[in-house]
C-alpha cells in the first residue's frame, strides 16, 4: 500500500525533565534509534498514528486520535492509534507522570501538521494552484474559491514518501479546532470495552499455552529451607516444575491444576526475625531518614521565626496504601526459535524489552513486547518482573507460558505508595501573616526522588525551607498516582487550615492572602464559588473543607462536604477546578479528575496496607476496603485553564488536594483536626 510516512525524533517520550522519576528509578537507557514513524497516511486515505504510550484507563487512544484528526482535518473515527507495541511504535520511556498529552500529543500534532502541509503541497502541484488558495477539509484538499476543485488524500498519495516532522509546521490554532476541546468526544475503544472484545494481559491465551503458578515465599525476605514437590509433580495435568532465577513454579495444562499443585507443594522457609511492623513506621521514617534534599529555600528561616508571634507545629503521618488495580498483573511469553514475544500489562514496554535483552543476552531487535489493554495501574505497573519469569519459564518449557497473579499476589508482590511522615513548623506574625515555614518530609523508599513531588509550598511565607528525606521501607515502595505529591499536599494544606483556624481566619481567605500566582488563585476561587463556600461549619452538623495544589504542571483546587456518623465519614459532594491549560478531550479529562477524586477518598478515609513480620495482613478486597459506588460523592468539575496554554497533565492532579479537603471538612463537622490517614481509623 502506498503511504506517506511522517518520521521524527523519539526522545519526546523521555519525560525525565518533568518528573525525573522514570529515569532515576528504572535507569532506562536511551533509545537505540532516534527516529521512528509517527504517522502514516495511506493510499486509501486512512490515517494511522503511532505512540509508545500504553492505554491503562486514561483514554489516551481517543485523546491522541482527536489531536491527529483535527490537524489533518479528518474525522476522529478514521484515525487508528497504535500503542505500546515495541515492534510498531516509537520508543518511549513509559506511561507515567501525565506526559501523554503534554509531550507525545504535541509531537503527533506537529507530525500531523507536517502531513497536512505535505498533502497541500502535492495538491498544489496537481491542481496547478498556489498553495495559499487551498485548504484541507474532510480528508481532501479543496480550493478555497472553487469547491469543485478538490482531491482526496487517497488520490494524492501515488508513491511511498517520507517526510521529517517539520518544526515550522503550523499546528492548528485554537479558534480553528473542530474536534479538540469538544465535549462528548466518544471513546474510540468504548464499544470494545462493553462487549468483552478488549483484550487485557490476563486475556492473552496463545494455543498450547501453559499456566504457571509461582511458589512465592510467605513473607518478604524469606529464604527457602526445604522443598518437596513430589505430590505436585504427580498431579495429572502438571507438565513441569521449573526453577528459574531462584523462583520455583508449577507449569500445568490448566490454571486450577497449577494452583492446586502449588497448594500441595511442601516448602519450608526461613523467615527473618525482627522485621518492622506497621506500628514501627512513624519512628522508623524519622530515624532512618537520610539523603536530606532541599526543594525550596527562601529568606532567612531564623529571622522569620524571630518575627513570629506564634509558632504552629504539627506532625502528619500517612501509611502505605495499595494501588489495587482491577486487573492483577499477567504476562505471557512465547519463543519462536531465538525470538521472543511477551505480552505484558506494563507501563514500560520498552523498558521491559531492555530488561529481557539483558537477562537473555539478546539483541533488543529480537524481542517484541506488546502491552495490550491494561486493567488499571495508577503508576504501579511500571515494574513488571513476572514478565521476566514468564520468559524464563517459556524457554525452559519450550511452550508459551502464562503467569497471572491472584489478587493477593498482586498486592504483595507489586509495590505500595510509600508511607510518609511530615513535620511542619510555621511562624505566624501578630497580624496573622505567615512569616516562616519549615517542612521536613520523610518518605519510605530507596530514592529521595520519591518524596520530592509537591514538597514546595506555593504560599508566600517569606522565609521558607522545605526538606525531603528518604527512609527505610519495609514494604516495596513504588509509584502511585501523583506519588509523594498527594502526601506532601495533605500535610501542607491541613497545616494551612490549622493556622487559619488558630488565627481566626477563613481557610479560603487565608490562603488567598498568601498566594500570588494567578493560576492558583483562579482554581481556588473557582472551586470555592462552585461549591458555594461559606466556611468549614455547615448546617445539620455537616462540615466543609477546601484545599489546593499543583502536580505535573496543572493547578487544582477541591472543596468537599461531609457528615460524620460514628466511624463513617460520608462525602456528599465535591467541587473541583482544574487548570491544565488546553483541554484536548474534556470528557476524558473529566473522567480522570473524577476517578482521581474517588481514588483519593479511599486513601483519605479508609485505605491502609497493614503489615507485620514481613507479611501484608490485608492483601485482598475482603480486608482492604476500596471506594465503592456508595462512597462516591457527587462531583462537579470546572476547567479554568487558558486554551492558549499548552496542555499539562490531567490524570494525577485530582488526587492531590482531596485528602486535605476531607480532613478540613471533618474538622468542620466535628471540631477535630485529623493529621493522620486514613481518617476513619481515628474516629471513635
Amino acid at each position, binding site marked *: 500500500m502506498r503511504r506517506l510516512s511522517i518520521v521524527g525524533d523519539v526522545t519526546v517520550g523521555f519525560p525525565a525533565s518533568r518528573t525525573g522519576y522514570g529515569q532515576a528509578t528504572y535507569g532506562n537507557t536511551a533509545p537505540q534509534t532516534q527516529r521512528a514513524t509517527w504517522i502514516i497516511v495511506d493510499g486509501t486515505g486512512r490515517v494511522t498514528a503511532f505512540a509508545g504510550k500504553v492505554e491503562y484507563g486514561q483514554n489516551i487512544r481517543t485523546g491522541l486520535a482527536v489531536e491527529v484528526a483535527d490537524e489533518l482535518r479528518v474525522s476522529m473515527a478514521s484515525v487508528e492509534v497504535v500503542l505500546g507495541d515495541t515492534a510498531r511504535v516509537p520508543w518511549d520511556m513509559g506511561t507515567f507522570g501525565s506526559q501523554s498529552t503534554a509531550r507525545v500529543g504535541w509531537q503527533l500534532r506537529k507530525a500531523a501538521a507536517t502531513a497536512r502541509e505535505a498533502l497541500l503541497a502535492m495538491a498544489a502541484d496537481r491542481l496547478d494552484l498556489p498553495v495559499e488558495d487551498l485548504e484541507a477539509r474532510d480528508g481532501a484538499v479543496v480550493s478555497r474559491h472553487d469547491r469543485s476543485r478538490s482531491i482526496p488524500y487517497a488520490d494524492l498519495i501515488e508513491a511511498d514518501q517520507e517526510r521529517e516532522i517539520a518544526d515550522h509546521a503550523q499546528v492548528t490554532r485554537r479558534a480553528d479546532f473542530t474536534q479538540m476541546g469538544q465535549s462528548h468526544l466518544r471513546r474510540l475503544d468504548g464499544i470494545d470495552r*462493553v*462487549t468483552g472484545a478488549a483484550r487485557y494481559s490476563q486475556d492473552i491465551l496463545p494455543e498450547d499455552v501453559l499456566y504457571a503458578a509461582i511458589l512465592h515465599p510467605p513473607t518478604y525476605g524469606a529464604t527457602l529451607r526445604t522443598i518437596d514437590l513430589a505430590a505436585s509433580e504427580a498431579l495429572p495435568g502438571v507438565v513441569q516444575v521449573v526453577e528459574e532465577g531462584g523462583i520455583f513454579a508449577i507449569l500445568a495444562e490448566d490454571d486450577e491444576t497449577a494452583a492446586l499443585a502449588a497448594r500441595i507443594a511442601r516448602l519450608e522457609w526461613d523467615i527473618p526475625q525482627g522485621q518492622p511492623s506497621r506500628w514501627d513506621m512513624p519512628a522508623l521514617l524519622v530515624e532512618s531518614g537520610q539523603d536530606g534534599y532541599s526543594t525550596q529555600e527562601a529568606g532567612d528561616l531564623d529571622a522569620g521565626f524571630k518575627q513570629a508571634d506564634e509558632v504552629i507545629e504539627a506532625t502528619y503521618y500517612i501509611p502505605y496504601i495499595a494501588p489495587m488495580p482491577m486487573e492483577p498483573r499477567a504476562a505471557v511469553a512465547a519463543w519462536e526459535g531465538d525470538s521472543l514475544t511477551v505480552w505484558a500489562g506494563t507501563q514500560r514496554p520498552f523498558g521491559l524489552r531492555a530488561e529481557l535483552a539483558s537477562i537473555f543476552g539478546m539483541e533488543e531487535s529480537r524481542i517484541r513486547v506488546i502491552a495490550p489493554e491494561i*486493567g488499571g495501574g495508577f503508576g504501579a505497573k511500571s515494574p513488571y518482573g513476572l514478565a521476566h519469569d514468564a520468559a524464563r519459564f517459556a524457554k525452559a518449557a519450550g511452550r508459551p507460558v502464562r503467569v497471572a497473579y491472584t489478587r493477593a499476589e498482586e498486592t504483595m508482590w507489586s509495590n505500595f505508595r510509600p508511607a510518609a511522615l511530615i*513535620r511542619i513548623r510555621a511562624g505566624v506574625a501578630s497580624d496573622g501573616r505567615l512569616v516562616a515555614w519549615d517542612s521536613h518530609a520523610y518518605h519510605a523508599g530507596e530514592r529521595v526522588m520519591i518524596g520530592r513531588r509537591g514538597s514546595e509550598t506555593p504560599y508566600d511565607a517569606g522565609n521558607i525551607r522545605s526538606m525531603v528525606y528518604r527512609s527505610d521501607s519495609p514494604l516495596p515502595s513504588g509509584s502511585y498516582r501523583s506519588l509523594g505529591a498527594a502526601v506532601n499536599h495533605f500535610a501542607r494544606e491541613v497545616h494551612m487550615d490549622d493556622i487559619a483556624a488558630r488565627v481566626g481566619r477563613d481557610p479560603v481567605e487565608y490562603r488567598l492572602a498568601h498566594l500570588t500566582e494567578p493560576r492558583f488563585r483562579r482554581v481556588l476561587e473557582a472551586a470555592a464559588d462552585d461549591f458555594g463556600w461559606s466556611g468549614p461549619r455547615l448546617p445539620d452538623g455537616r462540615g466543609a473543607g477546601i484545599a489546593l495544589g499543583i502536580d505535573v504542571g496543572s493547578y487544582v483546587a477541591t472543596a468537599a462536604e461531609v457528615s460524620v456518623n460514628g466511624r*463513617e465519614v460520608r462525602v456528599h459532594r465535591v467541587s473541583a477546578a482544574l487548570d491544565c491549560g488546553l483541554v484536548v478531550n474534556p470528557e*476524558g479529562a473529566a473522567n480522570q479528575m473524577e*476517578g482521581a477524586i474517588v481514588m483519593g477518598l479511599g486513601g483519605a478515609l479508609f485505605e491502609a496496607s497493614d503489615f507485620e513480620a514481613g507479611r501484608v495482613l490485608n492483601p485482598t478486597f475482603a480486608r482492604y476496603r476500596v471506594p465503592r459506588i456508595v462512597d*462516591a460523592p457527587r462531583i462537579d468539575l470546572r476547567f479554568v485553564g487558558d486554551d492558549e496554554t499548552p496542555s499539562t497533565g490531567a490524570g494525577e492532579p485530582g488526587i492531590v488536594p482531596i485528602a486535605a479537603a476531607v480532613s478540613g471538612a471533618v474538622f468542620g463537622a466535628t471540631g477535630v483536626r485529623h493529621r493522620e490517614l486514613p481518617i476513619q*481509623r481515628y474516629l471513635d
Partner: protein
Amino acid sequence: MSLSKPFGGVYADHGMRGNGRQDIPPAEMMAPVRRAIADGGRASPDLVVSRGVAQCTCSRAIGEVPVPTSPVLVVNGVERQASRGDRNLLSYLRFDLRLTGTKYGCGEGLCGACTVLVDGQPLRSCMTTVGAVAGGEVTTIEGIATHDALAAAAAGEGVATLDDLHPVQRAFVEEQAMQCGYCIPGFIMSTVGLLKREPEPSPAQVREALVEHVCRCGAYQRIERAVLRAAEEMSVRSERNTGSEGDAS
C-alpha cells in the same frame, strides 16, 4: 540515627497509631454480595477461598448431590458439555471456552468483575463450578447483544456500531462510564439483572445493586448515570414495542 531531629515533639505517642482497626468493608455493604449469591440459588455463601481459586462447598456442588461428571449447560445460546463438573465456572468460561470478556478480579466474590447471568440472575462465576450450574443457561458479556453484526465484528469482519449493542452496553458507552474498562463487563451483567428485576430503579437501588462491584478507576458517577439512562431507554422501547405488538425485549 543518621540525622538529628529537626525540631522537638514526640511523634511516637501522638495518637498516630489510630485505633488499630482494619477498615474492612462494612457488613451491610457486603450483604448484597451474599444475597446475590443466594439469589442465584446455586451457591451458598459458605465458601472456601485459597490462592484466589474459589471452591464452592454447597451441597449442590459437592456433597449429597453427586457432581455431574460431564455437565451440560448452555452458554450464550450454545449447548456445551464440560469435561469436569468441579471446574471453576470462571476458569471454564475464560480458558476452556475462551470467553475472556468475563474477568478475574479477586477470586472471592467481592469485586464483581466475574459476574455472569445464570438463568437471568447475576452470579459470581469465580465462586461456583460448572457442575453447580449444570442444566442452566449462562450468559456472558459476549452474549447479551445478539445482533449478527456484533458477532461478525468479534470475528474480525466489519465494525460493531452502537446500534448493535444491548441498551445497557450502549448507555455505558454514551456516558463514558469506564476508564480501563476491566470491571465494566461485570457492572453491565449486574445491571442487566437489576433492570430485569426492577425496570425503573431509583438511584439508591442502583447503588445497592452495584455495591458489590469495584471500579478502581472510580467511574461510579458515570456508571450510575449509565444505569439510569439504560433503564429509561429500555422502558421507552418496551412501551413502544407493547404499543405496536412488537416483542418487548
